[in-house]
């Protein structure tokens, strides 16, 4: 093995392992402080490295040589390593523009419509009941219906914008034929009740009985209310002629019959038989009208 240290710039190999055996002659002196060479010992030689170039040659056949390197001063001049900059690229902040085509969203699946308010107002259909010979027929007149609603407030953040729309609901009046759609199936009904406990005593037939009414006779005061209506009295008789004897039948006086008539106003009640202690009441009746003739 030969070891040679030459002047000039040194190349530092990144794969140089220190301490350890030197591999090859290219590993010249720089930074070999306290290095121990794993070479065969051929003797003991002390060397001092001075300025300038020097060379050390060790015969390949010599043995037992011990190389001891003292501390020395070394100047390391080297060239900057040519670093592989391409592996350490630092990317600064840049501006990026992403251009593309808008996604064709399937609106029908992503649109979320909030609840809206709808009002259906209509005119009540008038059912006309006619009674032909076949039976009762219900005829529905034409009705008018209007659907008014509030536009649904769609959630704009989903990128769907819905404009207000107009809706028209048109329909045809239903021709109701109740006589064909009403099908009544046979039904079974069970009426369960409790036998009424009839009160037989209420239904007893009352036979003819005898009743006796006992009481005090009512004291009617009819005598105080006697009202004498107008009456007509006729006096019947024969006229009396007074004749003076010897005068040839000269009538001196004649008592002629004059029918007497006693009339009492029917509205003047006659008070008959009033007790002396009963007060006498006189009624004064006045009749008035709002437009007396």
């Amino acid at each position, binding site marked *: 093995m030969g070891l040679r240290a030459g002047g000039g710039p040194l190349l530092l190999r990144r794969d140089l392992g220190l301490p350890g055996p030197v591999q090859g002659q290219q590993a010249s002196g720089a930074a070999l402080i306290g290095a121990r060479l794993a070479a065969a010992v051929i003797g003991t030689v002390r060397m001092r490295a001075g300025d300038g170039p020097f060379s050390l040659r060790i015969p390949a056949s010599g043995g037992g040589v011990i190389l001891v390197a003292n501390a020395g001063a070394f100047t390391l001049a080297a060239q900057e390593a040519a670093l592989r900059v391409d592996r350490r690229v630092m990317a600064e902040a840049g501006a990026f523009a992403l251009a593309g085509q808008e996604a064709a969203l399937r609106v029908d699946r992503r649109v979320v419509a909030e609840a809206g308010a709808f009002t259906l107002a209509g005119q009540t259909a008038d059912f006309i009941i006619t009674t032909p010979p076949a039976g009762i027929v219900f005829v529905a007149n034409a009705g008018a219906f209007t659907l008014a609603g509030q536009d649904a407030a769609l959630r704009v953040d989903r990128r769907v914008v819905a404009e207000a729309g107009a809706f028209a609901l048109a329909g045809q009046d239903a021709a109701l034929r109740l006589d064909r759609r009403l099908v009544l199936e046979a039904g079974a009904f069970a009426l369960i009740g409790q036998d009424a406990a009839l009160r037989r005593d209420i239904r007893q037939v009352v036979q003819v009985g005898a009743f006796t009414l006992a009481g005090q006779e009512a004291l009617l*005061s009819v005598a*105080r*209310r006697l*009202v004498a209506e107008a009456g007509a009295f006729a006096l019947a008789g024969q006229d009396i002629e007074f004749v003076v004897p010897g005068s040839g039948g000269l009538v001196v006086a004649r008592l002629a019959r004059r029918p007497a008539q006693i009339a009492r*106003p*029917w*509205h003047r*009640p006659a008070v008959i038989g*009033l007790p002396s202690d*009963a*007060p*006498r*009441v*006189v*009624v*004064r*009746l*006045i*009749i*008035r*009208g*709002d*437009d*007396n*003739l």
Partner: protein
Amino acid sequence: MNAAKYWQGQSVELRALFLSAVGVPLAAGGVSFRVKKPDGAVLTVAASPDPARANEFVGVLVADQAGVWQVKASCQTPAPAVEQSTFTVMASLPG
């Protein structure tokens, strides 16, 4: 006899005053008006005390029939008494 005449459909007021034998008004009780219509129907007209006139009772009827109406006013207390009168209802306006 009352000679009053009214048109058919008019309201006729019946008024009764109860006096003593010397002409002093009495507080009568059980007062009623009995009316006999021209067709013979008899009805009773309510007699109410007149708040404006003491011891006077008043009743109102509608003369709905033409002819002679008979009216009887009576009381029960202090002693039974009765008074009657008539009035005539004309069917329609003349000529």
